[in-house]
């Protein structure tokens, strides 16, 4: 009959009205500034730079390889590597700017970073009075400690740490091995050099004769 | 001069205004509105005469005004429909343009 659908609808909304007063599952609203929702670990907003140790600038993992700058789709990353007095490139950024008014939060920079240096942040309250300068974040603002990284995404950070440690270990081993090889090579070279010297002297002597 | 005179003069002036609109405006709609005003002036007369009649309790004047309002409503509907038809026919509501029957 006509109207039964309307009655059903009215019943449902009435149930909502009454239910929202005593059933807390119904009322899912979070009163934001006072209450905050637990953000899921994989939530991502804008990128930040991870540093190890105490000093924010010195401890930066970033090597200014510019990989992220190249890959960034909206091209919001701007990097100038550090140079020493002689003009030699250092493995550190002198300028690392991200324009978050342009950034679209795609996370590609974090994907491509080979040094686990750039990561996606959970921080979303970035509103500023100055919409140009205020939203252009410099490396001082971007740099956040590994501890913070652990605090926002513990699983990922642990995995990263482990892999970094592994890498470091491997690198050390490699270095050790390389050192050993170097030593051996040096020895061989020395021997060879001795042989050569000897041969030379022999040759010279032959010529003399 | 009695109040009835005043009422009648009011009605006469309103009638003349309606007539003026019907005579001096070219838009068919305004001419119709002028005619409506003339009808209203007539209604005013009815009511005035009813009010000052010797036996107003049978209410003939008011009755007549009610019927006249009803008829006026019908007249307005038909008149405006005609104007729309004229407009569709010659894309103008100037009454001077509606002279197909000119001799």
């Amino acid at each position, binding site marked *: 009959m006509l109207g039964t659908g309307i009655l059903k609808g009215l019943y449902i909304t009435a149930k909502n009205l009454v239910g929202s007063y005593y059933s807390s599952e119904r009322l899912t609203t979070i009163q934001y500034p006072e209450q905050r929702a637990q953000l899921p670990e994989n939530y991502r907003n804008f990128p930040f730079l991870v540093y190890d140790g105490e000093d924010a600038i010195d401890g930066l993992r970033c090597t200014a390889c510019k990989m992220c700058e190249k890959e960034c789709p909206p091209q919001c990353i701007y990097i100038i590597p550090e140079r020493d007095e002689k003009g030699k490139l250092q493995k550190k950024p002198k300028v690392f700017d991200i324009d978050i008014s342009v950034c679209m939060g795609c996370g590609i920079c974090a994907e491509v970073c080979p040094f686990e240096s750039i990561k996606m942040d959970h921080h979303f309250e970035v509103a500023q009075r100055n919409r140009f300068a205020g939203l252009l974040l410099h490396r001082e603002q971007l740099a956040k400690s590994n501890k913070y990284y652990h605090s926002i995404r513990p699983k990922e950070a642990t995995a990263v740490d482990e892999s970094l440690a592994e890498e470091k270990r491997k690198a050390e081993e490699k270095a050790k091995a390389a050192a050993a090889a170097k030593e051996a090579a040096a020895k061989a070279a020395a021997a060879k050099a001795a042989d050569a010297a000897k041969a030379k002297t022999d040759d010279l002597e032959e010529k003399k004769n | 001069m009695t109040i009835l005179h005043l009422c009648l003069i009011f009605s006469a002036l309103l009638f003349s205004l309606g007539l003026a609109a019907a*005579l001096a405006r070219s838009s068919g709609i305004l001419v119709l509105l002028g005619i409506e005003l003339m009808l209203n002036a007539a209604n005013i007369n009815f009511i005035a005469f009813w009010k000052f009649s010797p036996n107003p309790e049978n209410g003939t004047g008011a009755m007549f005004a009610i019927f006249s309002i009803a008829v006026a409503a019908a007249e307005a509907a038909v008149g405006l429909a005609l104007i729309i038809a004229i407009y569709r026919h010659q894309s103008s509501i100037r009454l001077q343009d509606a002279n197909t029957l000119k*001799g």
Partner: protein
Amino acid sequence: MPSSIDILWFIPALPLLAAFIGAISTQRMRSVASGSALSAMAVSFGLSCIALKDALAAPGVHQVNNFSWVSVGTFNLQLGFLLDPLTAFMLVMVTFVGFLIFLFSTGYMKGDENYAKFFCYLSLFAAAMLGILVSNSLLLTFICWEVVGLASYLLIGFWFFKPEAAAAAKKAFITTRIGDLGFLIGLIWLHSISGTQLFYNNGEGFLETINLVEATAPALFAISAIGILLFCGAIGKSGQFPLHVWLPDAMEGPTPVSALIHAATMVAAGVFLMARVFPLLEFGSALTVVAYIGAITALLGAVIAVAQNDIKRILAFSTVSQLGYMMLAIGVGVWEAAIFHLLTHAFFKALLFLGAGSVIHAAHHEQDIRALGGLAPRMKITFATFSIGMMALAGVPFLFSGFWSKEAILHGAHTWSVSHIPFYIGLVAVVLTAFYMTRLMANVFFGKPRSHAVEHAHENNWVMTLPLTLLAICAILLGFLGTPAFPWLQAKLLGKDLSGALEFGKIFEGPGLMITSIVLVALGLGIGWAIYGFRKRERFGDADPLEKRFPGLWSALEHRLYFDELYAATILKTNSLLASFSDWLDRWIVDGAVQLVSKLGTLLGFINRDIDEQCLNAGFNETAEEIRGIGNTYSKAQSGDVHGYLRVMAWGFVAIVILVSIALNI
């Protein structure tokens, strides 16, 4: 609570309303149409019962409710409504049977695409019929009479795409119109004599003043003539002898229509009219005519019915025959017996028709009794109810209503002082009736199925069987209202006091007569069963046993005694001859004269032109130019500019006021 005479007009008005609703109902709203028709009939039935109660409370009193219809100067034409036992009984019968038939129709017409229209027509018919019944004015009766004719025309031709149906509708309409012409003439004549159309008007209606007329020869002649003219209308409507031909053809309509119109109600209108104007007929010598016509019709119908093969045709001719009975009863002066028979007949004939409809519906519109057969085990309710109807029609003694009403008529005919011929004819018809009904039963319900459709026939649903059952009960019970021992109905109709209670002693009033008729019925049934019952028809094509014995007679009967052919040969022929003659007259005599004149005219024209061109043209041209110039001048005023006209009006108004005030020196 208003008295029932005041609300009497509701009874026809409600079906009229339903007809209107039906007319505006679309195909999608079919249930609205049938629902309104059914409910209108139901309410009318309720009102009729109330009216009956009121009418019976005052037997012999004619309650009237007249009103002025047309009033021009001193001429005042009054119409009105009338309530007396006759009207009330008829009302109850028509509404009740009508309701059952409407109900039946909802089932029977279910698949039809003009369903709503059908109920519109049915309701219109019912409204007109009820209008005839409640009318207190011959004119109102005539109006409703014509509407009934129209509705019957529409309903017979309802399946107008069948040529037979269209032809039958035309035939019915035209044939009854012939009778109605007589009715109209009688009506006008009556009005010119009596100055009123009202039956009863507190002592001023023409049925009341008729007794005050001096029995002089001219008056007697006039009143007899009027009676016979009115009877003409009844002949047409009730299918009496010379004009009976339309009724069997009308069976082309849907079966509920046949039941409603051509069995129960419309054909009864003629009988009702005769009963209504009975005082008028009584006064003159019209009754004798009525009696003989009735007797002839009764015999004729019964005889022809013997040799028909279409189940509905048989019933139709039996209707003709039974109507003849009723007319006979009126003719011999026992109109109360006629009405009694009319009521019982309405029920059992409607029952028979609806039973036939049920059979036809179940057998996929097979109507030929030679193709039916063996339906008794397949359709038990229909068989049982049909048998009751058949026995009532045949007049099987004691239990069935037809017996009592027929007995009353025969008794009346027997005691008629003028002649005994109608009585003997009636007796013959009794035998024949029993005979052909036995033939019908044997062929339809016994034996074995003779066509494919019949083999798969099964009982219909309740909307069709319920009316059958109710009608069957009525067909039995109704007879006991008018037994000689307790002639309650007759007494009420005549307005007499029913003296004393039951008189069982009088149940065999005139025992010889009753025994004779019982014997005759038994004879008819016996012969019928002997011929058709013991040796049942095997195949569709088998010749009828009687056909083998009397081939000539049979074929005459089968062709309905060649009435249609006779009419075609005489009346139609004469008509077309006359038409050809006038055509010839027109073509040669009138036209020739016209041609001659025109030729003369042309000649004169030639002469004229010469004179004209030579002498007159110059002068005329000049004048014409002048006139055109004037026209041009004045046509400028006709500017087509509304404002211009208005302005001129305004100036004109001002000018007139000024002129008038000057003239009046104000």
